[in-house]
């Protein structure tokens, strides 16, 4: 199982909470970037070991801001350079308000079979406070168009703990998304990253966040509602109708292999017996210059992850899944038992009432998932 992530760093406008690399949409910049991306594919494909990829995720930024035909060019180049499985899950991220029937038709045409919509909220005031350009109505229109275009696997991203948000606001957003026929919902709590406009809004007192207890209530209530609507929780923040779990994201949580393409994208892969991680450059012009010269645009040399660290990564990521991790997978990867390697940590979590032992592994219970960071501490000490 391996995935490819393609980063499209353009947005119509920057959301106030966002600290990812993105640039305003300028036709010329977009064209230069897509050219560079296609260059990079050719370079990377030559240097990386050959393998078949089972998932592709085009994320951003806002990939749906690319000009008509550009996604088609990207996908064609991808197929030229990489072996993509016949039944691959291919996702594109889109924001309501940036989609139209032609783009959607283009996506379908080039094999994209999953759509991820950034809905975030259905309260216009909250959307405005976040600096988002769409209205709740835009989402419904986009959904209609997407379904008409033939998309049957659609995710909506939601957020909670937002400025001025109430539990009712959040539940309304879930109702709207579910009513519009999404098959997957991600519900993330807002993280206020330093030096984002929202960070300054909050520190300056112009924006008020809900308190810890209110945020916790949103989280609890949204969990209940999603379950009752038939979205089962398969990861801390992700819910899906049966069979609609995101294979691309599951690969991350399984600590699987993936290649990142594009600005500031991240990769992880077993090469030459080593578990390597690397990241691409995050400076736009530098990225373009490197690919132009036929070089891979790496920010730094690939980093070798030591065996003990790789084991911890498997736990750190795997315990985000409600199914947890299995000893079978662990032993297959490391040749030793999960229960021996992490015996102390597992015993401690057990004692602290955070853990459930499954038939062939461990998983966190609800309380354990609530405080995953704390639950991981004993694994760092082993």
């Amino acid at each position, binding site marked *: 199982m391996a995935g490819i992530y393609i980063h499209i760093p353009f947005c119509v406008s920057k959301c106030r909470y966002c600290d990812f690399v993105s640039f305003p949409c300028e036709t010329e910049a977009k064209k230069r970037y897509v050219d560079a991306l296609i260059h990079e594919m050719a370079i990377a494909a030559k240097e990386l070991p050959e393998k078949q990829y089972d998932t592709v995720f085009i994320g951003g930024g806002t990939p749906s801001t690319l000009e008509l035909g550009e996604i088609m060019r990207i996908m064609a180049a991808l197929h030229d350079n990489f072996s993509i499985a016949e039944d691959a899950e291919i996702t594109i991220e889109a924001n309501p308000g940036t989609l139209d029937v032609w783009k959607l038709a283009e996506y379908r045409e080039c094999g994209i079979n999953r759509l991820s919509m950034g809905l975030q909220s259905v309260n216009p005031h909250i959307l405005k406070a976040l600096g988002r350009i769409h209205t709740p109505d835009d989402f419904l229109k986009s959904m209609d168009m997407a379904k008409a275009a033939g998309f049957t696997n659609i995710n909506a991203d939601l957020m909670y703990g937002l400025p001025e948000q109430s539990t009712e606001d959040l539940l309304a957003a879930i109702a709207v998304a579910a009513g519009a026929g999404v098959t997957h919902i991600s519900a993330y709590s807002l993280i206020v990253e330093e030096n984002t406009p929202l960070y300054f809004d909050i520190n300056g007192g112009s924006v008020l966040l809900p308190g810890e207890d209110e945020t*916790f209530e949103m989280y609890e209530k949204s969990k209940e509602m999603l379950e009752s609507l038939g979205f089962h929780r398969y990861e801390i923040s992700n819910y899906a109708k049966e069979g609609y779990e995101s294979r691309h994201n599951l690969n991350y949580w399984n600590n699987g292999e993936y290649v990142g393409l594009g600005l500031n994208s*991240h990769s992880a892969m077993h090469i030459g017996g080593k578990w390597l991680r690397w990241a691409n450059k995050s400076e736009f012009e530098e990225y373009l210059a490197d690919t132009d010269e036929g070089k891979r645009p790496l920010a730094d040399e690939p980093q070798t992850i030591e065996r003990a660290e790789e084991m911890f990564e498997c736990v750190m990521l795997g315990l985000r899944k409600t199914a947890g991790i299995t000893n079978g997978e662990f032993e297959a990867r490391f040749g030793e038992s999960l229960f021996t390697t992490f015996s102390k940590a597992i015993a401690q979590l057990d004692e602290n009432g955070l853990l459930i032992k499954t038939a062939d592994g461990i998983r966190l219970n609800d309380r354990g998932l609530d*405080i995953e*960071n*704390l639950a991981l501490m004993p694994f*760092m000490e082993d």
Partner: protein
Amino acid sequence: MAYDRELIRNFCIIAHIDHGKSTLADRMIEMTDTVALRDMEAQLLDNMDIERERGITIKSSAVRMFYTHTDGKRYMFNLIDTPGHVDFNYEVSRSLAACEGAVLVVDATQGIEAQTLANVYLALDNSLEIVPVINKIDLPSADVEHTKKEIEDVIGLPAENAPCISAKTGLNVEQVLAAVVDTVPPPSGDINKPLKALIFDSVYDNYKGALSYVRVVDGVVKPGMKIRYMATGNEFEVTEVGIFSPTLMPIDALEAGEVGYISASIKNVRETKVGDTITDANAPADEPLPGYKQANPMVFCGIYPADGADYENLRDALDKLVLNDASLSYEPETSMALGFGFRCGFLGLLHMEIIQERLEREFDLDLVTTAPSVIYKVVKTNGEEVMIDNPTNLPPVTEIAYMEEPMVRATIMSPSEYVGTIMELCQDKRGVFEDMKYIEEGRVNIFYELPLNEIIYDFFDQLKSRSRGYASFDYELKEYAKSDLVKLDFLLNGDMCDALSTIVHKDKAYAKGRAVAEKLQEVIPRQQFEIPIQAAIGGKIIARETVRAVRKDVLAKCYGGDITRKKKLLEKQKEGKKRMRQIGTVSLPSEAFMSVLKIN
């Protein structure tokens, strides 16, 4: 060849902090060409970083200068620089005893302060001639006439002809040099009598070992002589004697009336105690010079490495500091909460702060310190008396007949408009009013009897803030007094945290218990479980707070496979946890231990 004793002047400079003592010393050193101008740096005699930064003198030092007077004669000046702070009162008194005169520096913008007076009395006790000097006359707010009047009225010294100087610019400093010759008498003493040398400081030198800084009162000391330290009875052979120029410079002999150092291959400054008398082992003096006292620590606290792995480094650092500081005491102690550390004893709060700061700066250690404690006297029901410097060692309540605590007599000098608020502060600190005297119109001297344990926390800071910085403060120790004291303990999740225990007066225990519990509730981060915090006196719970459990972590989403943020977050969390102390299941940050201190 002996210097004509008539031409020797031994003196020190006394002043309140910041009145310009070290600056004046610098100017004198410059004007007598003692140090080449290029080697000159400010506060030459304060050679510790911490002394320069804080503008204080911690260790005594001395310098020999030569001054040609208007009478054409060349005089030898031995200037002994002394600490000024009350913590080092005993050291100051020994330095003064080594002199015949003192230059009293008074800041013309501030006038006389509590420390000025305390030091003047010490000088008078040692029968010193005093040369008053009015400093900082270059400042616009200087009031020379008023300062002169104050010196006359408050101290009773004629000040009409006092040199009015600016130590900063050097203005009229020449007059101070001349006044020293005219006012300070030459040393008496007999070169033919058995050796008597007064130790006014001892300093550890990496090459020479522990050096005794001395004033030779009678006789002669030279290399090869066998000397005896009269208080300890230890005998050593002198390997070198010398003077301060101001660096150590060996000479053939030190004679009666002179100031210098004696090196005798002594390993530890504890062998050469300040105030002790050195004599000739083969022809000893009948009796030592008066005034020797054992300097005893008054304030104690636990010092622990923030990282337990640094325990040995902390021990090494203390071993090194104590080489040069005989009044610092330390012994290993173990706290359930803090692990291995040391119980350290200090002369006072400033001394404690300085040692903590030096440990952190000079030895790069991260420390956790417990609240300072004084020494309590516990009289047990079986009649036995024990001295307690650590609340943890207090016997069970049932075995205590009564307790006593050390008292001080505090002198507070302040503009009269602040009298009300200062008296309120003293009252609040369990002070008993003794007396109040007007020094002059608008300035008063207030006398209080106060428990030492009330002034070791934040008394000085509060005094300063209540008087807008105008009040000054000095104290002397008095005897112990019976007091209704209790031990206040804190329990975290039911486990007692020994490092938070403190001894307080019964009337204050409830308020303090509540305040500390509230403070702990603020500083202890939320954890996996709810943490009850309880304050208790003798098993009786008097206050309770709760740190609620973490409900939910903030979870970084590993977007696009970027797991570096998540890893960083976890690393940070792990580092944070490592810096905390485990009390049972509770993780306690270092600042929690200081919270006991920062409560009014």
